[in-house]
């Protein structure tokens, strides 16, 4: 949907179609932020709130009810997840690399950057799923289990959304879209991807470390 908001504006006349031929008068721009970025930021606000709600569940189980964390007789693969964290963070860096490259017309940098970002993200997701398989407890064993799967699963879902966005951008990058002048299509999904990473740091530290 974010991809939608990116493309769905009259302002992006550069997406290979003409909005303004016999269209409406160009809207007056009453703000310095461009609609796409603003839209994405607002969307991220509500995403943060979704996580907020899941953290509320976490809070009620772990703090209010003061139950052991993780549930008795289970432990969490802190190390593996730690490596995974590193992977995801590095993907943020490559994303940034891709953006800077497109900004100064380095097409190779753009493509390579997008590709590595995508692959790193995919690896993260894979490791995560693998972790689920071997972790040794199920959502229905305990409320803690539910919260654990709830939070990490929710984040996993967002990684997935992020990956679909990245895939789109990558495809377009290889098809020669985006220029130094017009690269919002890379920038805005980038913002989302960075959000996904930051969110993971919060999830990781509160679920695994604390």
């Amino acid at each position, binding site marked *: 949907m974010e991809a939608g908001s990116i493309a769905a504006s009259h302002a992006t006349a550069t997406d290979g179609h003409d909005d303004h031929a016999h269209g409406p008068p160009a*809207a007056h721009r009453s703000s310095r932020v461009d609609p796409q970025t603003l839209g994405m930021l607002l969307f991220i606000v509500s995403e943060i709130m979704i996580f907020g709600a899941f953290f509320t569940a976490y809070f009620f189980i772990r703090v209010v009810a003061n139950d052991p964390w993780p549930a008795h007789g289970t432990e969490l693969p802190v190390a593996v997840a730690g490596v995974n964290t590193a992977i995801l963070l590095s993907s943020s860096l490559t994303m940034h690399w891709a953006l800077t490259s497109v900004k100064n017309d380095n097409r190779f940098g753009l493509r390579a950057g997008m590709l590595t970002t995508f692959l790193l993200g995919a690896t993260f997701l894979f490791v995560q799923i693998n972790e689920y398989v071997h972790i040794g407890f199920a959502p229905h064993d305990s409320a803690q289990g539910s919260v654990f799967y709830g939070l990490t699963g929710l984040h996993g879902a967002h990684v997935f959304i992020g990956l679909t966005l990245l895939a789109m951008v990558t495809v377009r990058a290889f098809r020669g*879209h985006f220029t130094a002048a017009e690269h919002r299509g890379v920038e805005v999904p980038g913002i989302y991807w960075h959000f996904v990473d930051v969110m993971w740091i919060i999830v990781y530290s509160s679920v695994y470390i604390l």
Partner: protein
Amino acid sequence: MAARLRAPGWYRGAWTFALGIGFAYGLTILLRSLLGADPVLDGNAVLTVALIAAPLFFLVGFGGFDYWFYWAAGKPTRPEDHSGHGAQSWKDYFRINTDHKVIGIQYTVTSFFFLLVGGMLAMLIRAELAAPGSQFVDADTYNGLFSVHASILIFLFIIPVFAGLANFVLPLMIGAPDMAFPRLNALSYWLLPIAGLMMIASFFAPGGSFSSGWTAYAPLSTDLPIGQTFFTVAVQFAGASSVLTALNFLVTIITMRAPGMSFWRMPLLVWANFSTSLLVVIATPFIAASQFFVLLDRSLGFNFFQTGLAAGNNGDVLMYQHVFWFYSHPAVYIMMLPGFGIISEILAVKARKPIFGYRMMAFSLLAIVVLGFTVWAHHMFVSGMQSWIRIPMMITTAIIAVPTGIKVFSWLATLWRGVLHLDTPMLFALGFLTMFTLGGISGVMLAIIPITIHVSDTYFIVAHIHYVLFGGSLFTIFAGVYYWFPKMTGRMYDETLGKLHFWLTFVGFNMTFGPMHIIGLQGMPRRVSDYAEKFAGWNLFISISSFVVGLSTLVFVYNMISSWRGGARAGANPWRALTLEWQVSSPPPVFNFDAVPTVVGGPYEYGIPGAVHGIFKTPAEAKPAGTVATRPTSE
């Protein structure tokens, strides 16, 4: 035919929908066989997945995402020839359309359809309650009736109808050619009917419709038959729809205002929708999450709310209520603030006076937004939560009456020494003023804990609900629909029928919901299909009056339909209003403006000779006029 099946539209939608159901079967069978579950084919599992997948597949087929798929694949996107703009025939209202005016009407009409459905259910509720004992529905169906009644009227009527009206007038008001994200706008509309039909369809689910009220408290909602899942999923669709619209409004208001339209020159309707959208974007994710919890507990055996487990492993039942109300209290202002906006527009125009204390009106909106997030637990005074939370919540809740009071009093002051045109929109506006005040005051009584301890979960609450939602929100909606009817349809509504509608509604409404305060205090609990003998008299009276309300609604429907088809032609500006939407023809031209207007003064400068709000000139030409009407809004 083959072409039709490939082109976006109902045909392609149909088969992708079927595909979605197939997908549901495939996925569930696959997963269950992988996990070695048995039987491999489980009806409920399939139904659950289908409820989520089928609508999405349908939207894909229907064309909701086409543009973005092209974009994603990097194909040259179809040149936007604006065939999507404007509606030539009624058919155009039944396809993806990116014109905010078309979408606005789609929204409004759809949600009024759901008002009739929800109202019809209310009539059944009243028929059942006309006498003690059970008339013609059993307890389970009854619980279904009021649950669907409330869910439909809240999620499919009040919230979207405001979004609809705003969709139509807001871009016009701020001098924008359209919303910021037209395709997103179309998508968020089409999510609505899906949610609504899903809720209605739940009546045909095995085990009956969802029956845990619109609040769907766990663990009841996690125990009920599959009908409950229809609610859980439908709410997700409705929620997504309103978040996307809110996002769209915010971006439109921030980035697409006409030159000269500073925040302090925006009509209060725009301010109201700005505040509401903030609430929606921040709060709605919480109800989404609360229903995710329920869904996970129901279908994947999670334990967010199960308590029978080993010590230290139990879920927390109250957590649901906290998360739910953290959305659903702000939601009540989501259902009221746009109404406040409508009333401000109408009172200023119909009293031929500037809004009294314009800036305080805007600030009080924002104050309500902020305070709205600090009071959720006033719905949990008897829930058994930690008792200390109640006190701060009581105080914040009571304090909300202050900004709301500022609005009410400022509206009264706006009437003062005006020239009141007492036509239908104005009547409904005044009706709102009086009725909402009553509902609000009963709200303040509910904030007072010792009172709530007694009246919580009684008909006193039901009375409060309807005084604020019907006497409040619905009255503003009626007012707004009558007020903008000429603009939307280009025709005049029938004034006499309008007045008749008002008086029938006003009287019937008070006779229906007034007595509920008494039986509530007397001890009649809510959500019961059967009640003690001593309440029989009042309930019969209430039921009879409720049919009056019902019939009055029919008058309204008739008036709308007949006037739309055969009403007298309306001029561009029948109310002599200053705001921009009235400066263009009725109905407005396809692209709203040939050239974006320039705003040179406040929106409500009535009574000031030669005052103008916006003019169709470029900023450069406009300058001189600017000096005329820009006065400080308070002196």
